[in-house]
C-alpha cells in the first residue's frame, strides 16, 4: 500500500531527542494531503508510512480552494494524560471551496525541518468537488486520540 497509517519511526527517535514539542506555545505542526494512483500534483503517487521521515512533495494533492500545497497549520489542543497514556489532540481542519481527492495525510513539524510525525490513511479516496474537505480528529482519550504513547 502506498499510504499506510503509522507513527513514523523517525518521530519516535526524535521524541527522545526533544525534537517535537506538542505543548501549547510549542512547535507548529501542519497537515498535508496526499493521493495515490497518480492523483497527486503532476500525476504523482504518494508513498507514505512508518519509514517516512520528512514532508515530501511527491503525491501531494495540488492547491485548490483554501488548500495550499504544504498543507495547513494544525491548532494544538496540547499534550495531556488520559490515565497513564500520554495523548495529544488537534482541532478539526477544513479546506473550503476545494476540489480534492486524497487517500491520506502527513502530519509534520513545521518548526523543526518538516520532520514527519505520523501518516494518516483514509482507507479510501475521499473527494470534495468545489466543496469542503474536513478532517475530524478522534476523541482525545487513551483509546482513540490521534497520538498516544502508553
Amino acid at each position, binding site marked *: 500500500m502506498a499510504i499506510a497509517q503509522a507513527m513514523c519511526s523517525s518521530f519516535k527517535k526524535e521524541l527522545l531527542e526533544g525534537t517535537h514539542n506538542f505543548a501549547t506555545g510549542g512547535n507548529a505542526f501542519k497537515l498535508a494531503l496526499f493521493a495515490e494512483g497518480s492523483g497527486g500534483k503532476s500525476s504523482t503517487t504518494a508513498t507514505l508510512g512508518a519509514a517516512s521521515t520528512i514532508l515530501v512533495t511527491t503525491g501531494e494533492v495540488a492547491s485548490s480552494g483554501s488548500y495550499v500545497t504544504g498543507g495547513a497549520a494544525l491548532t494544538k489542543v496540547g499534550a495531556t494524560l488520559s490515565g497513564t497514556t500520554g495523548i495529544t489532540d488537534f482541532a478539526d481542519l477544513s479546506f473550503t471551496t476545494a476540489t480534492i481527492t486524497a487517500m491520506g495525510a502527513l502530519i509534520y513539524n513545521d518548526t523543526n525541518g518538516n520532520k514527519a510525525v505520523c501518516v*494518516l490513511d483514509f482507507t479510501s479516496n475521499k473527494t470534495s468537488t468545489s466543496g469542503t474537505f474536513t478532517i475530524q480528529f478522534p476523541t482525545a482519550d487513551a483509546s*482513540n486520540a490521534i497520538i498516544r504513547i502508553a
Partner: protein
Amino acid sequence: MFDLSVAEVGAVNVVTSDNGGLSNDQIAEMATNKIVYVSDSAPPPIKEQAHVFSDKVHNILRYYVDLARREERATIVQTIKEAGHPDLANIIRRL
C-alpha cells in the same frame, strides 16, 4: 529502563461535500462524534443505551444547527437588503 510499549495513531474521520459547504446533518454528526463515543468493547446493553443517547444528541444538534444557519442567513439577508441589493438578498434567502 523506560518502556514505551504502545505508540499509536488514531483514526481520523474525513467529511466532504460537493458544490458548497457541509450539510447540517454532516455538521451535527461531527459534533455528535465529539460528544458521544460508543466503545466497540462495551457490553451490549450499555452499547444500545449509548446509541439511543447518541441519536438523541444528534437530533438536538441537527435542530440547532438548522436554526443557527437560518438565523445567520436572516441577518445576512437583512444587511444586504439594507445595502440596496434586494435581488442578491432574495437569492441568499432561498438557500
